[in-house]
């Protein structure tokens, strides 16, 4: 399920450019070391607005998931059924996306995943998706 990310502004544009370069950009608080996603100007843990950007390692585990059997709008009907998940990245933050791969429907809470950044034919990044890592 490729879905493009429109050009944006400010912190969101930095995030989008990170995807263009093949990384999920997270913010790390200079004051308390808390790491967060999605891009926001203030540390959700301590309120500091001093942060640095770091690139996520791209690994995590499934915190929860749902198999979508009823499309929220017509454009997603042909993708049914598909799996939406929230994953806990190794760095800490939680992230939402769809699970890709032939075995997506067998997803379980606790499964390890890797983050993938799909690109369209012109190289523009889409929303990150997750692929299960099978041992």
């Amino acid at each position, binding site marked *: *399920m490729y*879905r493009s*990310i*429109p050009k*944006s502004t400010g912190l*969101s544009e930095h*995030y*989008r450019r990170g995807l263009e370069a093949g990384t999920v950009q997270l913010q790390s608080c200079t004051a308390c070391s808390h790491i967060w*996603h*999605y891009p926001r100007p203030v540390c*959700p843990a301590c309120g500091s607005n001093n942060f640095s950007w770091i690139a996520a390692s791209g690994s995590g585990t499934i*915190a*929860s*998931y*749902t*198999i*979508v*059997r*009823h*499309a*929220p*709008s*017509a454009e*997603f009907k042909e*993708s049914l059924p*598909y799996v*939406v*998940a*929230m994953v806990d990245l190794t760095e800490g*933050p*939680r*992230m*939402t*996306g*769809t699970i890709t791969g032939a075995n997506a429907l067998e997803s379980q*809470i606790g499964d390890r995943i890797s983050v993938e950044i799909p690109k369209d034919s012109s190289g523009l990044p889409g*929303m990150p*998706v997750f692929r299960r890592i099978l041992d």
Partner: protein
Amino acid sequence: MRNSYVDKVVISGVGESEIGLVKDKSGLDLCTDAALSAIANAGLNVKDIDGLLTSYCSTEPYFVFYGALAEYLGLELDYGVTMTAGGGTAGMMINAAAMAIASGVANNVLIVAGENRASAMGSAKTTQMLTAFSHPLYEGNGISVPAFYGMAAQRYLYENNLDRSHLAPIAVQSRANAARTPNAHKKAPITVEDVLNSRPIVEPLHLLDCCLISDGAGALIVSRREKEKDLIEPPVYLAGIGEKFTHEHLIAAPDIVRPGSKAAANKAYKMAGLTPSHIEFAELYDCFTITPAILTEELGFSKEGRGWDLWSDGRAGIDGKFPINTHGGMLSHCHAGAAGGLLSVIECIRQVRGTQGDRQVPKHDIGLAHTEGGIMSNHTTMIFTSAPL
């Protein structure tokens, strides 16, 4: 001696429109019907209303909906605003009304929520609207409100070693309670098997785990405490109220299944000087079966991981040990925008009054209502009593 702004108010009137599929009425019509019904129920004249709080009305073009309704009803207001906090708008309007009265800004605040969502929007448009809750840049890939609740349900079942059959009795009991409520949208009985066999929407939630899409409106009036002696119906008192907001998007929530509801409830209990064991019945937000299961635990009616058990053996029925969602909730009575939450508050008022005849809960001096909005994002807990505390 307690001293709180809620001591300055009384619930003076409640009302509702026709509910279900109401094809010949607009959102404004339904809100008007509910408002006039509440004004009559309070024994007031339209011109006594000097405050108006409305929710959004998704089926009307007005950007300033409270203004449209005020003008339509012929109101001149000292205080009024349209509030938008999703399903949680109802509880927040009640808190705002109490604060407005206690601070001397208004004397009779009319609260209205409703729309003709079933007739004007239907299932496809409503579901599409619910995708707007996912963040357009970070979550917008086939994800909508039901999917987030599906993920909350999956996590809840996983953490507590349960399966979806444990949630099904919540839908069954809600329907049984709705069957005894004259104005309810859905009254035909359903069984646990019906819930389990209904078509999957966002697993583990199936169709009968999801709230209705209805036409309907509710209205409620909060008045200055001195009005209590002039009322037609028994006065009902707001003993405690508490709000808590923690997140807009579920990835930013402190916990997928433990949101701000406990903090909201603890404020309400503290204000009222009561504990969960004092509560005689509860009207809990139920956009999906998972929601009230979690809320019963967060509000202190059940141990963590056992909330679903309150619905076993008819215990949540109108005549049960601890009645819950006595009108059928949003799963069976009505869900039309912010009206679903408001109608659960209205049901709480009616039951505390003790005027519900053969559908009256036996013990009705202390009732609790809880509304929430977004993806368990904002919470308001309200405790209503038949006598001032």
